[in-house]
């Protein structure tokens, strides 16, 4: 039988507020010693009173609006009751039936087609404490407890591991554009759980749903969902039955393993949080937040294509991070619009290559947009050759120096003087008699080799057009 995969994703993102969700402890806990960002409120002491962080609500509203959700006039917090050592109060303050955002959507690209994934809800809750496992016992560090945590739940409309990955990347890009979360999966500030099941193709009925946890990178999400959709098909093909369960992804073994599910785990007995008065949103506040939303990646991509005539590929990569898109447009403020494609080529080519090689971000680069534009102007004026520009760029990348200074100091100005080049060409030809003979015997590649030798002799500064002219002349005919 032919089966199709059905996936729903739950994404938790820590919000970039200064203070925690319900108390004024600092959120800057990542490198702090254990239990140093803690007060009676986030420690869950009886008799303490939580107070809602306005910024966290604002960030959640921003996200909900960016995901085209409806923001109801009324929302509230609820207690989710469970016993686990990561939860100091034995309940987590979350939102049950009145989330901040409802009914949105996110467009993804699957195999070149646009597909809309509906968003069920966006709600706000508090993060829990961190458990350290020591085998015989466990340790609890409460620093993370109470960090604002925003949960985005998709409808089960994702049909493959590829789509799931694209959804996650799109969602993370939006959160980063909004500046509400770092979106880092590696340090746990962006986490994803998945519900995955299969069903006979075309049918509506879902088979037993498996919840997959412990996926700590985009790669892990992709691999785990790929593995799980294969595993479920295999179970059915071999005549087995699927059971509703929670499975954990094992990174090293690249398999999912059934986790002993907590008995009555879903009996959370939600009830309205009596310590937090409900929220009634002023429409003017929502409108004001909406007006402040930055241009979102999808809209920016379309605009870059329309405004600068960039290909879809360039516009997609440039807008995949707000910093990259900002950098691109800051360059264009300093030069003419017809330079858009050249700047894009630099950003997508050498710049990205060096950023990757040094594991750094464009936010922290030493090459300001002004410096890059200055380099391009030197190429334009013929002061330096294309190959020299690449070398100068690399020096700029590591030192942050001006292109004109590097060129002056390294005597890298483009060599276009025919007399001087003539001498060098003659020397190279004399040293490479075999290549000359090969060329005369009809081997075109020999010309490329000889050009390469001349560029080498001039440290890449020779003007390629002049070199070609002299070569053709020296070798007789073209």
């Amino acid at each position: 039988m032919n089966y199709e995969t059905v996936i729903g994703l739950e994404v938790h993102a820590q919000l970039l507020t200064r203070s925690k969700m319900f108390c004024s402890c600092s959120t800057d806990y990542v490198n702090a010693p254990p239990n140093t960002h803690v007060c009676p409120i986030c420690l869950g002491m009886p008799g303490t009173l939580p107070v809602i962080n306005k910024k966290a609500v604002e960030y959640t509203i921003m996200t909900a609006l960016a995901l085209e959700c409806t923001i109801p006039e009324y929302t509230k917090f609820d207690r989710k009751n469970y016993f686990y050592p990561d939860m100091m109060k034995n309940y987590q303050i979350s939102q049950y039936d009145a989330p901040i955002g409802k009914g949105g959507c996110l467009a993804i690209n699957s195999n070149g087609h646009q597909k809309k994934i509906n968003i069920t809800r966006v709600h706000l809750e508090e993060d829990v404490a961190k458990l350290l496992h020591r085998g015989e016992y466990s340790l609890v560090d409460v620093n993370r407890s109470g960090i604002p945590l925003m949960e985005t739940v998709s409808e089960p409309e994702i049909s493959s591991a590829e789509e799931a990955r694209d959804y996650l990347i799109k969602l993370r890009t939006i959160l980063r554009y909004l500046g509400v979360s770092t979106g880092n999966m590696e340090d746990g500030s962006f986490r994803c759980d998945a519900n995955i099941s299969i069903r006979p193709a075309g049918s509506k009925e879902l088979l037993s749903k498996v919840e997959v946890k412990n996926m700590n990178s985009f790669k892990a999400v992709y691999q785990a969902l790929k593995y799980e959709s294969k595993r479920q098909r295999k179970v059915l093909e071999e005549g087995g039955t699927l059971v509703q369960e929670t499975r954990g992804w094992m990174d090293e073994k690249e398999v999912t393993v059934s986790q002993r599910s907590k008995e009555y785990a879903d009996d959370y007995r939600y009830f309205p949080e009596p310590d937090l008065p409900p929220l009634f949103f002023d429409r003017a506040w929502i409108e004001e937040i909406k007006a402040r939303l930055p241009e979102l990646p999808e809209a920016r991509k379309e605009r870059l294509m329309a405004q600068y005539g960039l290909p879809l590929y360039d516009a997609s990569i440039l807008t995949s991070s707000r910093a990259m898109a900002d950098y691109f447009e800051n360059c264009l403020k300093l030069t003419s619009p017809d330079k858009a494609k050249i700047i894009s080529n630099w950003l997508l080519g050498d710049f990205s290559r060096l950023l990757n090689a040094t594991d750094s971000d464009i936010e922290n680069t030493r090459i300001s947009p002004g410096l890059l534009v200055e380099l391009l102007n030197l190429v334009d004026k013929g002061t330096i050759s294309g190959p020299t520009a690449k070398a100068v760029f690399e020096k700029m990348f590591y030192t942050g120096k001006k292109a004109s200074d590097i060129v002056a100091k390294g005597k890298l100005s483009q060599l276009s003087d025919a007399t001087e080049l003539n001498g060098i060409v003659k020397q190279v030809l004399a040293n490479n008699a075999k290549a000359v003979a090969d060329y005369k015997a009809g081997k075109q590649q020999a010309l490329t080799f000889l050009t390469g030798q001349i560029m080498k002799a001039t440290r890449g500064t020779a003007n390629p057009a002049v070199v070609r002219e002299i070569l053709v002349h020296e070798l007789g005919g073209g």
Partner: protein
Amino acid sequence: MKLSRQQVEHVAWLARLGLSEAEIEKFAVELSNILENFEILNQVDTADVPPATHAVPLQSVFREDQSSPSYPQSDVLANAPKKEESCFKVKPVLE
């Protein structure tokens, strides 16, 4: 509405309360009485009344996003029955 023995045991388990045989019998009666009283309240026609979630007439109470110093680590851990590596020490948790 009469609560069954299993329902009482389930509720006790959810609250992590260990009940003796006598207590299970006792609470089955007492909890059933409470529910019966709610059944009387249920007879009131509330079709036009929005559900109330809070008893205090307050709404939209926020604090600004400002951080202030937390408690000293020694105070945080002062009441911990067991501690190690500046953490609360608890029974092993299966992940």
